[in-house]
């Protein structure tokens, strides 16, 4: 892969775009199909690399000169990987899924050579059943998914990439902040703090040395969450562009993207993206001849969940043990090395370029009163369609689970949906019509969180489920504050003995007592939200707890696990 090293300006950016569009045009004669194999970590894990090799081989062997072959990141439909998409001259997209060697041969024979859709493979197109997975989604943050090669900056530029940066650099920093404020964008890390206001705090914060930092929080650690990974792997430049715009707005000269080392492909993609952006002078000195300079590095986290907490993350960048520090002072005033630091989540930054490009009103025309735009969820668990979904704010949980998710697997009964990961809560059937909205979700005992959404069916024991999260959080507590270190341990011990059939009378009350205290008195967000899975399951599924204690029965889930161990 060659890296261009010519500093470009706005005009040249347009030329790159035009060139790239031309090169990818399907005229139906010289170029008839564009074949894209989707190579996210999820796809690769299911064998997408082999599919890619096979496709390349067949094109070569059969001398199919009319095919443009490329790869992209994940298209979100995890349960159907590996996948490939064929684009036709009329822009029709046909996606084949659950691929294996045989199916690829069929696709070549019937579709790419035969010219007809391989209906026997039941591909996803407008007439297929599976299309519902995409039909109810909106593509804003994920608008490039499946359509660009994440290792080619030119692909991103062809989709109007870095145009927002040009637009932002033409405005004053305050004007940029006003647009973000007006858009109503809120932090996608989960807490939902208004992004524009955070930017403004940081812009106005006085720095002891005139230095300020921008940090992108890509330390995604919630079990079952993969929003950040997907964005980093599939559309890295949208994040870089968001960071650049933010840096310009607050006056930062240096930034870090914090990515956990467990995401090697994301890091590789990002490293390449930064290198390419630097090659075009989009990161560096005097960017696009605007006078604005900015440097960006990747910082690899070592896998501590608590480093997703912003103050711990900053300590980690300072090469110290990742332990949260009390707020205030907030990072916007005293962050990295004690200097003003803007820290936003990956998805938040991914929203920025679109907002600048299309305007605040475009963005806030979608959503609820206080929650605007879209939200990405990693939809997993007992649903038919597992995957990464982007839905408009305001869509109800029921719609997500039953329309996008295609309902519960094996036609079982829905029991609960857990959102917000270890910090979130479980929502029962009766609140399924709750819309996706920061405040509304909180009202029913969960939090928006960064986007984990786990659907549970009737077979799930809620005590065991809560125990799973408590086990996770207890392992990941940084250990410095008493309620989190010892409190979660004691909660875990109580949960364990309940699931083992040794629960005692008063245990539920103890869990509630501890849970409330831990929430109120813990030092950081990790501890403050740690009891949520337990408290919300007690609230909605107290019967599960009582049954265990009264009958002294151990948990079915435990038996299942024991069986798995034996095997």
């Amino acid at each position, binding site marked *: 892969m060659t890296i261009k090293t010519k500093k470009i300006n706005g005009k040249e950016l347009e030329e790159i775009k035009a060139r790239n569009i031309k090169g990818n045009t399907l005229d139906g004669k010289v170029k008839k199909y564009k074949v894209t194999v989707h190579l996210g970590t999820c796809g690769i894990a299911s064998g997408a690399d082999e599919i890619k090799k096979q496709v390349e081989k067949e094109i070569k062997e059969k001398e199919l000169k009319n095919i443009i072959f490329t790869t992209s990141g994940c298209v979100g439909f995890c349960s159907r990987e590996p996948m490939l998409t064929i684009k036709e001259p009329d822009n029709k997209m046909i996606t084949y899924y659950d691929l294996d060697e045989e199916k690829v041969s069929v696709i070549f024979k019937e579709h790419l050579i035969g010219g007809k859709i391989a209906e026997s493979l039941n591909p996803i197109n407008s007439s297929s059943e599976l299309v519902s997975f995409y039909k109810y989604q909106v593509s804003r943050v994920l608008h490039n998914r499946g359509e660009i090669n994440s290792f080619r900056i030119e692909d991103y530029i062809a989709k109007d990439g870095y145009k927002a940066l040009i637009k932002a650099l033409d405005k004053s920093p305050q004007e940029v902040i006003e647009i973000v404020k007006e858009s109503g964008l809120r932090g996608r890390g989960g807490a939902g703090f208004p992004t524009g206001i955070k930017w403004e705090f940081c812009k106005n914060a006085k720095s002891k040395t005139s230095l300020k930092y921008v940090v992108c929080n890509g330390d995604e650690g919630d079990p079952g969450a993969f929003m950040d990974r997907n964005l980093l792997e599939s559309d890295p430049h949208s994040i870089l562009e968001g960071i650049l715009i933010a840096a310009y707005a607050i006056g930062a000269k240096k930034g870090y993207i914090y990515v956990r080392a467990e995401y090697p492909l994301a890091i590789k993609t990002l490293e390449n993206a930064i290198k390419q952006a630097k090659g075009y002078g989009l990161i560096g000195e005097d960017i696009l001849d605007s006078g604005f300079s900015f440097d960006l590095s990747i910082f690899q986290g070592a896998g501590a969940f608590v480093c997703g907490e912003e103050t711990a993350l900053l300590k980690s960048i300072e090469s110290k043990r990742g332990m949260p520090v009390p707020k205030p002072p907030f990072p916007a005033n005293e962050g990295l090395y004690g200097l003003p630091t803007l820290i936003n989540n990956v998805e938040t930054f991914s929203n920025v370029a679109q907002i600048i490009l299309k305007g605040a009103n475009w963005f806030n025309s979608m959503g609820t009163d206080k929650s605007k735009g879209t939200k990405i969820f990693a939809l997993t668990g007992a649903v038919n369609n597992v995957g990464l979904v982007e839905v408009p704010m305001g869509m109800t949980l029921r719609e997500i689970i039953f329309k996008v998710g295609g309902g519960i697997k094996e036609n079982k009964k829905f029991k609960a949906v857990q959102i917000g990961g270890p910090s979130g809560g479980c929502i029962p059937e009766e609140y399924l019509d709750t819309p996706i909205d920061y405040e509304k979700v909180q009202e029913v005992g969960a939090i928006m969180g960064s986007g984990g959404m786990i659907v549970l069916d009737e077979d799930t024991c809620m005590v065991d489920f809560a125990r799973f999260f408590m086990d996770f959080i*207890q392992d990941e507590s940084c250990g*410095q504050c008493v309620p989190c270190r010892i*409190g979660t341990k004691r909660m875990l011990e109580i949960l364990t003995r309940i699931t083992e059939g040794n629960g005692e009378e008063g245990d539920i009350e103890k869990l509630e007592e501890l849970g409330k205290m831990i929430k109120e008195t813990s030092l950081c967000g990790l501890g403050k939200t740690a009891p949520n899975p337990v408290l919300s399951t007690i609230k909605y599924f107290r019967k599960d707890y009582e049954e265990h204690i009264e009958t002294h029965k151990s948990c079915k889930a435990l038996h299942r696990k024991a069986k798995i161990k034996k095997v």
Partner: protein
Amino acid sequence: MNKKAIKEEQITISINGIKINGSPGQTILEVALENDIFIPHLCYDPRINIQGACRLCLVEIEGFREAVPSCITKISQGLKIKTDTDHIRNLIKLNLELIVSDHPLDCLTCESCGNCELQDLAYLYDIDQNRFRGEVHPKKVFEDNPFIIRDNEKCILCGRCVRICDNLIGANAIGYAGRGFDCEIIPAFEQSLKDTDCIFCGNCISTCPVGALQAKPYLKKARAWETKKIQTTCPYCGVGCQINLHVKNNKIVNITSDVGKNINKGSLCVKGKFGLDFVHDSKRLTSPLKKRDGKFEKISWTNAMGSISSKLKEIIKNHGPDSIGILSSAKCTNEENFLLSRFARATIGTNNIDHCARLCHASTITGLIPTFGSGAMTNSFEDIKDSDAVIVIGSNTTEAHPVISYELINQVIEHNLKLIVIDPRKIPLTKYAYIHLQQKPGTDIAVLLGLMNVIYENDLHDTEYIDKRTENFENFINSFKEYSPEKVEQLSGVIKDDLIEAAKVYGSAKTASIFYSMGITQHTCGTENVISVANLAMMGGNVGKKGGGVNPLRGQNNVQGACDLGALPNVYSGYQYVEDNEIREKFEKEWGKKLPPKKGLTVTEMIDGALSGKIKVLYIMGENPMLSDPDILHVAQGLKNLDLLVVQDIFITETGEFADFILPSACFAEKNGTFTNTDRRIQRVNKALNPPGEAMEDWKIICRLSEKLGYNMGYSSVSEIMDEIAKVTPIYAGINYKRLNASPLQWPCTGKDHPGTDILHAKNFARGKGRFMPVEFSLPAENPDKKYPYILTTGRILYHFHTRTMTGKSEFLNLIAPMALAHINEEDGRDLNIKDGEKIRLETRRGKIEAVAKVDGNIKKGVVFIPFHFAESPANKLTNPVLDPKAKIPEYKACAVSISKV
């Protein structure tokens, strides 16, 4: 300041309905504690930044939804706080129950029982049962070192020890490991503390709220309630730390310091915490000794006093009083120094009295008197927090004045202080330095002139200050003009860009101070060195303001006091000249005796006099010139040549071996009195123990001998001596025991209502205007040549003090530092084929010694450092006795030496 401004400075809050004032920036917890309002806490230590880990200091604030930790919440106008609601009490109690659920309830045998913050809180909150029994931290003990035991079974993970070690001591010896419930605090990589950068200061123990950290030497000695706790002043360096001696059955069973209080805020160094076992050493002198046929034999006090006094009378009669020389002691109290000065001048009739200040800070006096008008530390210890930049030059603060280095390190780490270290060695402080200028020994003046040159060229000098407060600047400018950074680099080896950056930092800081010590003073150009420091400080406009100043760090616990109280040949107490008739008459009237009108001999001159026969008697109180003076072979010849040598000490020292009589004296823990520390702070010394055997307080010995010599001084207590000091000494005029017992005072304290002086030269310099004095750069008296190709420099190490009279007796200190290590640069080591740990010989024109080589990159190429403490490797066999002509201080810090493998 107008009234409005005063009003704005104060913030009024209410706690439990009571209105309380605080200052901006204070937290609720700090204000509450100041006002004796109880808020429980376990992770707060006033010496370091807060962590907010224990979550016990919870309070309710009106308008807040949830309980708020008071340690991290700053006060703001009108806050309404409640500390005692049911809700708060329940939260605190539950958190305490959790802590107790992971804590062994072995209070019956725990060393900290009765002195345990968790025990106290459990008592207050009625934690009488363990509702949350579960997994606990198992017993896990780290004790592979002489001083500190850590037992993680008892650790409550408050993190105080880690923050103390990281942010105050700068040792980073311990840290958190593991996550979740398994989190624990361990020495780095679970090694023995000996293999970490631990300096065994024991401050982790001082901050531990429970029994997880213990002082090994004090284990199983006594229960907390069995001991009597006496606060007194540490007898080692000049910082003046306040220590608590815990006494049971006339034995010290523990040493602590009150956290957050006094000059040292509860921090100590390894010597103060663990190095006082000399007090009970079996070699302590318990009766007077007389030498007969080369051997010492015990005699009674009556016989000793009789023999010494008749011998003295005889010699005075035959050779006159000026044939007697008296050495006073920087280890003894102010009162004793004052008395010995009176003894010399009134009882004997000579001004031949001096002490070891001659060997450390004589040049500070000769350098600062003509420039400022007063020769002491201009500012206070507490001022460091008000400095934006600090230069440390010629002071290995971490080893010689550890507690001051803690403050410097803490300010660097927690409060952005910019530290500039100027030293030939990579001393421990360089780790925290913004810049380290590593000069060749003896080239300080070149470096200082270079700094002034850059400051002037960049217009960073304080012209307004120079115009208003000083004189002679115009004439002074030429003295530094030719010292360009390039030239300074040639002369001193300091990289020119570093010099420029350092000058800019010092010159542009709002307030900056300079700390220096023996590296400046112990040169033939010591006086000029000091003057250069003074010139630099005045150029920056830094003298006379908070956070600024010129701060010589005094080496001994009471070297400042010994000088203040007239143990010098030319002045009475308070630096009043003996040759000034009016002053002499004042003292003659007070003491009822005619006093000698001419100034006397210095210590170095007395030794020369002994050799030439001019001096017949040396009377030495608590000094050890046989190790401390330069060229000790020469000292030995002098001592042998005397007609009478009387030594008053707590042990038989190297000097004592030469004595005709040795008088056993009481040590610091066995007497009352006062010490004056390095920042002119007069602090009480309180008697905690009875002296061993017949040993007696020095002041009583002096009084008794004087009486025997026919001159009754007539004191019945040390407090009376202080009253007399106050009467005749203007700078001590306001000092008395009643005031001192309440709190220390800093001189000048000129009257009963005078509050003492924290900053000298605040409005005017002591001499009126500060005087810029041109100095010339000169090389040390002896420079490397073919035969002696290296530069030898000497100094202290952390684990020992001076001639090891005290630290040499400490079992524990000698486990860590049993011998002299000669520090050699690794390149030199390679050239000489000397490896780390090998025995080497060092030889100068005066003698040779053997020592063990420590080869590393911390010392500049061509330089070798050796500590002067060890009699087995006596550095002062090697040093050059050449003196600074004005201060008469020897050049300990540079001479030519050869190195060879043994």
